[in-house]
């Protein structure tokens, strides 16, 4: 291949990839605009919150995948154009274009990798991206309501939030160790600064310091593990690594066991730190207490979601290699899943009044989305021991994390510390289906898909629950200047609407039946049951029981205890912007069960590409 063709290939690849990478690019542009607006004198009159909001809303709109047929998309023609222009000059076509006779291959579709294999663009990526960007939109609105970054520091804080979001999106879509590391760094380093947003406060600076030091250490260990893994497997590209690993184990060459084990363990340490899983959770309560409630929401939802995404990519990417390539069924599934994309998004886009009628259509399509009931990996394949090891490690960590988080939450008097331990516990619940998915790889492809889909559902529920709780904490902090649980005493008499919302969110966090938390948890437990991880299921159930009491204790203080005398008035009526914001987050939690079917279809679609 000539040098010139290489350039043409690279150009084509980056151009086609850029089109589906637009949301992140818009976020980056917003950062630059926020920076440049400080230069001119009139720039300070423009609200930085507004710019950040507009940027993230545009990014969210762009993250909805556009039409996937060449005729329907005018942009596809422009995409293909540079390639065809160059083709006239060079007689031999670049191999990729030559391979695909149809024009439809000229741009990226869900399921492809973009940027020459560095990033996966599939259902899971699309889901995480939408979740994260939507979260940023919601968070920015919350910040506008509570006014925590003041005028001076607004632009800085929003820049950090948007920058971290780009990092999160890299993490969840990474197909290469370099991207994973880059994503982790891009996500965590701005988070360290965010933890110290209120830079004049002693505890805020202490929180930032602890976060930064532990985080830097964890990142170092993770990089060392990555170097060992990449070196032992001869590549840093995840699919290639998985192939090489399968080959190594199949050949019975076991001299690299120790290297691989240590490398994998060190990567797991880094991920566990991001997830605040049990032995590496110690930063979490301190940072949550020191940082503001808004930043806590960011750390507990976005950061955890991205870390779970990366864990999924690693765990399934490294061990989900088929024993032999499945030719025909995979192609069929690919076709249906891309078709499904449109349907699902139609459902989500169209207003919810029509949802009931559309549910039938979705139900009809559901059979197509479901993958066939066959194992991804051959049951006697050489990767099965590796899968078992991964299941054991993640399962053990999940069990310990959940139990520890729930037990340690009991003694807390500060609501943010309590929520920190609650976050730890939920990270444990989120890790359970990952273990289940890996365990099901060698048994049942559809089951593994269900397990991953349960992560998706749980994250959707978790998004509303945790953001709602932290929003209430932030709003109450602005009124009563306290975050101690005892200061919440009898607050129901001043703002009953808010406490009702808080109650609903708390019940949902426990996982009581009609609420969103129940939906997610039920599905996770179903996946565990199917995977045969009965012990883990039992621990999860037991922990749900544990968690009832400390959540309800907060509610009890709010409702039953008498009001203290010295407290400043805390009334937040539900018919006000803050009240409506909280209500808007609570309503989906309450009624998510109604939309069981669309969510189920959507989550299954998001999970389907992972097993192609």
């Amino acid at each position, binding site marked *: 291949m*000539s*040098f*010139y063709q290489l*350039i043409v290939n690279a150009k084509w690849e980056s151009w086609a990839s850029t089109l589906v990478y637009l949301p992140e690019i818009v976020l980056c542009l917003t950062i630059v605009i926020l920076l440049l607006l400080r230069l001119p004198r009139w720039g300070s009159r423009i609200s930085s919150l507004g710019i950040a909001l507009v940027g993230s809303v545009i990014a969210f709109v762009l993250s909805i995948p556009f039409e996937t047929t060449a005729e329907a998309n005018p942009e596809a023609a422009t995409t293909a154009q540079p390639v065809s222009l160059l083709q006239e*000059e060079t007689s*031999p076509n670049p191999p990729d274009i030559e391979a695909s006779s149809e024009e439809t291959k000229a741009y990226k579709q869900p399921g492809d990798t973009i940027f020459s294999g560095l990033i996966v663009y599939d259902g899971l990526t699309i889901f995480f991206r939408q979740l994260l960007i939507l979260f940023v939109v919601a968070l920015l609105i919350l910040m506008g309501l509570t006014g925590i970054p003041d005028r001076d520091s607004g632009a800085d804080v929003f820049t950090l939030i948007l920058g971290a979001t780009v990092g999160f999106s890299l993490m969840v879509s990474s197909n290469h160790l370099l991207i994973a590391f880059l994503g982790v760094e891009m996500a965590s380093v701005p988070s360290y600064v965010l933890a110290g947003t209120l830079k004049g406060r002693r505890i805020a600076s202490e929180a930032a310091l602890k976060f930064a030091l532990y985080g830097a250490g964890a990142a170092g260990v993770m990089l060392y593990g990555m170097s060992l893994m990449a070196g032992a497997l001869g590549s840093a590209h995840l699919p290639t690594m998985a192939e090489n690993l399968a080959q190594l184990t199949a050949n019975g060459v076991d001299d690299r066991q120790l290297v691989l084990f240590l490398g994998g363990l060190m990567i797991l340490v880094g991920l566990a730190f991001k997830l605040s899983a049990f032995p590496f959770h110690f930063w979490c309560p301190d940072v949550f207490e020191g940082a503001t409630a808004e930043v806590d929401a960011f750390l507990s939802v976005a950061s955890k979601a991205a870390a779970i995404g990366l864990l999924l990519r690693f765990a399934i990417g490294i061990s989900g290699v088929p024993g032999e390539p499945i030719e025909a069924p995979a192609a069929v599934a690919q076709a249906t899943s891309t078709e499904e994309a449109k349907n699902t998004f139609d459902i989500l886009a169209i207003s919810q009044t029509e949802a009931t009628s559309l549910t039938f259509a979705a139900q009809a399509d559901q059979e197509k989305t479901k993958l066939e009931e066959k194992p991804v990996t051959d049951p006697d394949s050489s990767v099965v021991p590796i899968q078992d090891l991964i299941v054991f490690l993640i399962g053990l960590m999940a069990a310990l994390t959940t139990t520890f988080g729930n037990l340690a939450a009991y003694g807390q008097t500060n609501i943010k510390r309590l929520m920190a331990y609650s976050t730890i516990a939920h990270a444990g619940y989120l890790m359970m289906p990952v273990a289940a998915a890996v365990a099901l790889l060698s048994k049942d492809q559809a089951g593994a898909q269900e397990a991953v889909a349960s992560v998706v559902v749980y994250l959707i529920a978790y998004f509303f629950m945790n953001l709602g709780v932290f929003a209430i904490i932030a709003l109450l902090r602005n009124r009563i200047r306290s975050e101690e649980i005892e200061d919440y005493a009898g607050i129901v008499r001043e703002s009953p609407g808010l406490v009702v919302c808080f109650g609903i969110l708390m019940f949902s966090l426990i996982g009581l039946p009609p609420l969103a938390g129940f939906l997610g948890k039920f599905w996770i437990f179903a996946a565990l049951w199917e995977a045969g991880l009965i012990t883990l299921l039992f621990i999860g159930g037991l922990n749900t029981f544990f968690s009832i009491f400390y959540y309800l204790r907060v509610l009890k203080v709010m409702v039953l205890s008498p009001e203290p005398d010295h407290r400043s008035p805390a009334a937040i009526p539900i018919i006000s912007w803050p009240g409506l914001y909280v209500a808007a987050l609570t309503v989906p939690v309450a009624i998510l069960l109604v939309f069981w079917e669309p969510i189920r279809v959507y989550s299954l679609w998001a999970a389907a590409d992972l097993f192609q």
Partner: protein
Amino acid sequence: MVESLIENWGFPEWMAYLIAATIPCVLLLHVVAVGALFFIWLERKVSGRIQDRLGPTRVGGKYGWLQSLADGVKLISKEDLVPAGADSWLFRLAPYISVSCCLAAYLTIPFAYGWVAQNLDVAVFFVLAILGLEVFGVILAGYASGSKWSLLGGMREAAQVVSYEVPLGLCVVLPVMLAGSMNLTTIAQVQSGWFTSWLIFYNPFLFVTFWIFFTCALASVNRAPFDLAEAESELVAGFHTEYSGLRWSLFFLAEYGSMFSVSALAVLLFLGGWNGPIPITSWIGWTFEYGWFWGTLGNFVGLANFIFKCSLGIVLMMWVRWTLPRLRIDQVMTICLKYCLPLVCLMLLGNLMWPWIAGPPSASFVQKRYEAYQHLHPEPTTETEADEETTAESNSVAISLPQQVNEKQKVVLTTSSTTDSSLPLQTN
């Protein structure tokens, strides 16, 4: 060299290696040491003339040319003091760090075509990195002295050098971009011929960049008007307040040594290296094409040329020092971050756009670039049937300037793309 020592002279291998390593080291040491003596004398003369006096006149005859040697003897014979409150280990170590970094930078600087101790592929980068390390000597000296003047001087130096490394690095990118290599020999060889082919005259952007480079280089070697670290009007003598004797003189050796090395860098990157304003040596046939002897002769001329240009650069530095007043620390930072940095970014953009304005680089430039590249990577090309000229041109264009492929070159590339199966790139 090692092979010839073993085969022709019968040395054992280890001794051959030792000799081959010693010769460049000794030569470079002499360049630095003798150079420093000479330039210290020169500075005293130049400053004298600028201030309308004579400077040294006694030692060594009419011009006082032995003055710095006498000073050196005096400094060596002085007592080596370490203050009681100092961190003695670091205090003793600091001057050696400065000097050894200064010397290490010379390893990759070519003095004439092929006369370089270590022909590194990343020479430009390496020199910059090593010069950046020199700051540690100053910082440690400032810290370990246990005196607040020294500490303030050290901190100023740290802030200044770290900031100025940024525009300095960006300035270097422009010539590197044009030559398509970070090897200093290649960059200098690209500018062979008349002085119009020096990179400073390549386009207006490079002309401006040269002066930015010169300013930043002044700051990075801590010369006036950027000598905040030793500002004697405020800080007594800054980082070397507590030093005396040999260690004190080592700092000055390092200062003059790095003055020479940054000015050598400027000459190599912008002023044609050893290639003179007029290509006399190639007219009279003193090149390697006509054999080893004539090439060496030509190299001596080039060496003289190179050293003369470097000296001019140093005289310019002295001129600046004795003319301009010292800046305040905030002014130093303002110049770096508010003026130099945006300006050099602008120059970088302009240089990228230049082919749109003035068309692709001339054929002779491309040819020279290709030859310089070939010299570095002498690979037997397997292709025989292809038109040698065209392939050479297109390859080197594509290698060095993939972002500047414009219409004309594209055609050239297209015609040759079917035949260039062995790019000079694929050395593995």
